[in-house]
């Protein structure tokens, strides 16, 4: 079992979540976070483009069985990219997952995912 954590740009959330759900990957947790990557974000403030040090991002977390890791990462990569060559499309982290328990039934392991 793996835990996939992706940090992406907020404007790509819909594209990514829709694509994941279309491929039947429906166990997704998403949240708003702030962070600082290599990119300095621009926002317009009274006509001036300003950089902010911590900028809004979206973090998506998906716990999955090993065979799904590549599929999920491909979907995220394809849909979270801006195709404009600029920095800041985000990152994906994959870590191994020790245990998973479904609260309602108490099931454990791969079946619970």
């Amino acid at each position, binding site marked *: 079992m793996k835990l996939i954590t992706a940090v992406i740009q*907020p*404007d*790509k*959330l*819909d*594209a990514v979540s*829709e694509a994941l759900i279309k491929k039947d990957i429906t166990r997704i947790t*998403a*949240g*708003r976070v*702030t962070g600082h990557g290599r990119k300095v974000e*621009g*926002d*317009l403030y009274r006509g001036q483009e300003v950089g902010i040090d911590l900028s*809004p991002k*979206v973090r998506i977390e998906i716990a999955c069985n090993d065979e799904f890791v590549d599929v999920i990462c491909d979907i995220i990569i394809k849909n979270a990219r801006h195709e404009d060559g600029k920095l800041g499309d985000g990152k994906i982290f994959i870590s191994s997952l020790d245990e998973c328990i479904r609260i309602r039934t108490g099931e454990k392991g791969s079946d619970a995912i």
Partner: protein
Amino acid sequence: MKNWKNVMLLFFSWLVLWPGMALAAEGTPDSGATAWMLTSTSLVLLMVPGLALFYGGLVRTKNVLGTMMHSYASMAIVGVIWAVCGYSMCFGPNVLGGWIGWDPNLLFLEGLDDAVADGGIPDYVFAMFQGKFAIITPALIAGAFAERVRFKSYCVFITLWVLFVYCPLCHWVWAEDGFLFNMGANGAIDFAGGTVVHISSGISALVIALYCGARRDYPKTAMHPNNLVLTLLGAGLLWVGWFGFNAGSSVSSGLDAARALAVTQVAASTGALVWMIIEGVKHGKVTSLGLASGILAGLVAITPAAGVVKIPGAIFLGAMASFVSYSAIQIKSKLGYDDTLDVFGIHGVSGIAGAILLTFWIRESWMVDAAAATTSGTWTVFQQLLVQVSAVGITIAYASVLTWVIIIIIDKTIGFRISDKEEMTGLDQSCHGEHGYGLLNLN
């Protein structure tokens, strides 16, 4: 001794005031009436941020600023158009066979600098009061195509719509030589904008919703309101502002204003109450958005009627409005078109129903006046009903055809909808380069 002093004081103050009183009849401002109209003007303007909050809260987080901008942009754009030529087109004398009014002297409000109308209200105040109606009407339409149009195209749209739909309608209904103003014995009844504001915006909204199609994935995906707190705040401001809208439309500060104020309050409350009851019975839960919708439906229905009905009429119209608007929204869901914020369902449907059904609740004295204005000396409810239905029919036909033409022209030239990609990103980022909230809810 003390009494004697008071009498002297009264006498002198009367002497001092007397010239002013005498002059009031000759065209100096009546301070009481003017004060109320200044207040009303501000109240109607307050409805625009009210509308921005109401609509802004109902869309998804990524579109909150884009949606609020639709209302605010109207203040900027129509506010200027109105002063340049809008007022002249609405309240100038008939030209082009009565299609619009036109008076070169009213361009840039030039002729108003010294003008005071019969009721003792400076023309500037009246012009600004009317200007607020022109501002809020196109902003109402924006709810139908929320979350999916280009900001630039929206700006062009409201410019053309105000010039070619609002101004002619306003001229027909409210200018003294407008043909709807003079239809029948005593004119088509539209006290504060049932046809001009609500039916015209409601029907135009429907036309555009049908033309530009639904949002991506509607109705498959849930599209939650980002902040119903804003929406309730907006509904409250609209209610408050509506007192200026209706009671100000008597363009006086007397009995007519008082009547309009009272029925406005009662109709809004009844609308809210009945919507609460409908939801309570049908779903077992009363929603805050339902209550807010009931307020609006009641206010819309009483708008044309505020000058002619009494309290029972207001209760009927408010209750009826919630029924028909609630049903219209249920039918919309079945038909599947995406009038995003139910502009047609609330403003169109309640507006039409209010403008027609008010006929059965007109106060006696109005009917007597109407009868006196005819040659035969009689005027029946059904004759007035025919006038009301004609006025509504003409408004629907004119607004829908012209809106259709305007929207096709815009769509074929600069494009009306934003691209799929921009729609996914949200209006705030793609049209304005901003975020509405910091770390609040997703989407």
